[in-house]
């Protein structure tokens, strides 16, 4: 207090007040802008998903319907834009059709639903038949928003598939026109028995299975924008090359990978071009090529590692990537011909950039206190590119890496290494609602499909 003796008390108080105001203002500001552009900040719609009415005597009906009901609820809950009426708050009603729907019961407490999804689920002659409706509880005169029907062969997978489709219809209709992600997939790397292969799972972690069976180390899967191929890098006899796996044909297809270590392929959003790291002369640089590998162009010339490019999917006119040109890796951005290079991170250890679908944000992994001997706290951050302001999304122990945006821009999938094991997690793009998607350990490098 000796040093402050010269200041008068009111003067001191006003400085303190200003400092307090600034710190509050900064904190509020850092949270606010994260929400815009994703509908995450818009007031959530209170939605009830009724258990569907079992409308057949077939013995499969009960189990398949349970799968359907659970999946539908989960998809709507995951969307990030609904305040779901929990099943315990919902009236114990299973209306099979609009004639059986009692909207007043759903609109009243404790449900207080603004919207209700309901319908019938039947299994007849080996086929699932679903009729689903979405009703506006605030508009009893003319409540119908959606009326849909679905038919698929009876199986657990198809019970989930129909739920995903219906959920996406609801999400797209009520979520400002951004398509739902319930039918999207996540590609990732699974370490099994000394090798690493590319796997696929539904966006909610269901149905995980191996795609490649190359018996080596394959990394960095990136599915093409039209879902027909996965580009990835794989360790062959002569080193790392970029390979393509056709999801249509179910086997690898040829790709003209340049000589030398080639890594981290990334698709432009029109599927026409790839960017990747290639070390033709021993120093990894960023290259672009056509989707078949032709028209190869080198676009960086920095000493040191250059890797992990990502295109601005809105324009395909910019690429962000990770460069070790000044020492510890930092995130940079340039035009897709290599001009106008800008550095985006100001220190620490920053890697694995992923560009948001609306072109506005980069998600990346950052350890801001990195250095020899430091315990390592690598978290997922997002940065607003125009202002360079960033927000930290994860605060856990362990190492987070390889964030990948969902196509609705509302979710980010990432890798979390904790206690020796590595799993894939998902969260909303404001860092809330983190759930684990995999459980067998050795899972890494997730990539969210474009649709």
């Amino acid at each position, binding site marked *: 207090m000796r040093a402050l003796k010269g200041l008068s008390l009111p003067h001191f108080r006003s400085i303190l007040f200003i400092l307090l105001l600034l710190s509050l203002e900064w904190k509020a500001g850092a949270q606010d802008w994260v929400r815009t552009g994703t509908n995450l900040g818009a007031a959530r719609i209170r939605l009830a998903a009724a258990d569907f009415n079992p409308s057949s005597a077939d013995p499969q009906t009960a189990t398949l319907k349970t799968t359907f009901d659970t999946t539908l609820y989960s998809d709507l809950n995951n969307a990030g834009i609904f305040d779901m009426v929990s099943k315990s708050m919902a009236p114990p009603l299973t209306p099979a059709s609009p004639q059986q729907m009692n909207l007043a019961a759903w609109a009243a407490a404790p449900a207080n639903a603004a919207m209700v999804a309901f319908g019938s689920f039947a299994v007849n002659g080996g086929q699932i038949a679903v009729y689903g409706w979405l009703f506006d509880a605030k508009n009893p005169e003319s409540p119908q928003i959606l009326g849909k029907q679905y038919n698929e062969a009876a199986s657990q997978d198809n019970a989930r598939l129909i739920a995903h489709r219906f959920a996406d219809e609801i999400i797209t209709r009520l979520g400002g026109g951004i398509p739902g992600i319930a039918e999207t997939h996540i590609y990732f790397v699974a370490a099994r028995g000394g090798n*690493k292969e590319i796997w696929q799972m539904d966006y909610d972690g269901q149905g995980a299975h191996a795609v490649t069976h190359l018996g080596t*180390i394959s*990394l*960095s899967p990136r599915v093409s924008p039209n879902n027909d191929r996965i580009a990835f*890098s794989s*360790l062959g006899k*002569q*080193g*790392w090359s970029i390979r393509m796996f056709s999801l249509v044909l179910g086997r690898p297809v040829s790709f003209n990978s340049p000589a030398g*270590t080639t*890594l*981290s392929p990334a698709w432009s959003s029109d599927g026409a071009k790839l960017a990747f*790291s290639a*070390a033709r002369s*021993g*120093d*990894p640089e960023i290259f672009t090529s056509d989707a078949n590998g032709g028209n190869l162009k080198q676009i960086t010339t920095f000493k*040191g*590692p*250059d*890797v*992990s490019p990502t295109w601005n999917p809105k324009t395909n006119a910019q690429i962000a990537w*990770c460069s*070790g040109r000044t*020492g*510890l*890796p930092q995130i940079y951005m340039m035009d897709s011909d290599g001009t106008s290079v800008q550095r985006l991170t100001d220190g620490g*250890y920053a*890697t*694995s950039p992923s560009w948001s679908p609306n072109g506005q944000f980069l998600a990346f*992994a950052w350890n801001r206190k990195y*250095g*020899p*001997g430091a315990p*390592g706290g690598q978290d997922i951050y997002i940065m607003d590119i125009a202002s360079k302001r960033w927000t930290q999304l994860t605060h856990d122990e362990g*190492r987070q*890496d*390889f964030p990948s945006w969902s196509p609705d821009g509302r979710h980010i999938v990432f890798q979390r290494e904790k206690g020796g094991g590595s799993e894939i997690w998902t969260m909303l793009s404001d860092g809330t609602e983190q759930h684990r998607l995999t459980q067998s350990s050795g899972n*890494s*490098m997730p990539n969210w499909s474009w649709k």
Partner: protein
Amino acid sequence: MRTLQHRHFASLIAVATLTLAAGCHKKAVPPPPPPPPAATSPAPTASITVTPDTISPGGGAVLAWKTSDATDISIDGVGTVNAYGTQNVQPTESTTYHLVARGPGGSTDATARLTVNAAAPPQSTGETIDEQMFEQNVKPAFFDYDSYDIRPDAQTILAQDASFLAAHPTLKVVVGGYCDDRGSAEYNLALGENRANAAKQALVNGGIAPDRIRTVSYGKEKQFCSQANEQCWQLNRRAGFSLDR
């Protein structure tokens, strides 16, 4: 008798006129063709190169030559060849390629010398090197955190590695670039590439032919130990060698 005299006289005058004409106006009569000149055809030119100009036993090189104004071109030890071309050669000892080009304008020649390095004397244990002996003599070089610079201790190790490889010139090696398990998989693959190439460059500077050294990055995919301490992390930050079969 008189007409004969007239005719005779007329032809005499004609001949005389012609002769006079020929004598006064040389231009009017085409000159006889000149004898063939001693050297008006262009002389042939020739050049020949061999790339590289030094090889190890068993290695190959490319002979390249071009000539002009020559109709008969031959290279000693190769035979008659076209006016220009290339040829792969794989001699077992040093050879001088002598090209002779002959043409109507004369002949010329050119030479290129290919040196074949003498093979090292065979080791007392035989020509083959086993893995254990290799590992004892060709040691890994270690790197600082996030660096691919060759430190002084690494430089010493790499110089020793280069000596061993020079003494066993038939050996080929693979240099693996490795990283500790902190940090990001993709970045570490790129850093491992830089490390492998830095070690390769150090060997090349030490006199080892680049075609004997192949590089592979393992990033952090292959670990030599698993403890979370600096000692283990340092052990993983390396350029390591193995025999390339």
